[in-house]
């Protein structure tokens, strides 16, 4: 399930709703991303998250579907906010519920890693020196790549 919204969300209530009556769930992993008061070592006043309505939902849905294909999830939820946010504000929620915790952990991390490189959001930070568009991080590309299918090991490869 995915949602794109301006309003804040309540992680506890969202997760409770996600697993209500689902007694096959053994573990729920939740990631909440927050606005930090520092950006590249400089004080951050606030930020504005711009997005591409329509494409955002489509990309998030595709990522969520892929997570459910890869792992045996009982439920999954991605909520991403847009608009003006201040330090300490919630930006994103990713929650995954599964009978087994390894699947929930892997799927949650996969979702946030892919979301960061695929979902069309852009951060405009208001810092001491004015407004500045955040640059994409190479570390986020690397994080997403770790979820690509590994090539099959050659049978004669040394171990």
């Amino acid at each position, binding site marked *: 399930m995915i949602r794109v919204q301006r309003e804040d969300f309540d992680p506890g209530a969202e997760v409770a709703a996600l697993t209500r009556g689902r007694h096959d769930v053994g573990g729920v992993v939740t990631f909440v991303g927050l606005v930090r008061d520092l950006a590249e070592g400089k004080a951050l006043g606030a930020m504005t998250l711009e997005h591409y309505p329509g494409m955002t939902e489509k990309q998030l849905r595709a990522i969520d579907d892929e997570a459910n294909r890869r792992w045996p999830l009982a439920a999954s939820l991605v909520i991403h906010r847009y608009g003006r946010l201040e330090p300490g504000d919630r930006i994103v929620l990713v929650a995954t519920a599964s009978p087994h915790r390894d699947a929930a952990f892997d799927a949650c991390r996969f979702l946030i890693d892919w979301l960061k490189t695929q979902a069309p959001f*852009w951060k405009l930070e208001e810092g001491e020196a004015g407004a500045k568009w955040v640059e994409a991080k190479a570390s986020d590309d690397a994080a997403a790549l770790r979820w690509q299918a590994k090539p099959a090991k050659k049978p004669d490869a040394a171990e």
Partner: protein
Amino acid sequence: MKVLYFAWLRTRIGHAEDTIELPKGVEDVRGLIDLLRAQGPGYALALTDLATVKVAVNHEYVGLDHKLKPSDEVAFFPPVTGG
């Protein structure tokens, strides 16, 4: 054809959206970019370095060789920074 700009591509170009009629001979994303670059210095600046420009057609990421149809919605934007 609707063409959208986001983030610093939008601020460099100065507006969020154009409606463009594809001239004969412009068939793919690369051709559209060449056409846009000729629209003015803001466009040329925004589309200088294609290594930092992503393209989506009808909400899907595409490459520069992607063929265009008149009904397509094309979007140009920088690498994403959500999450």
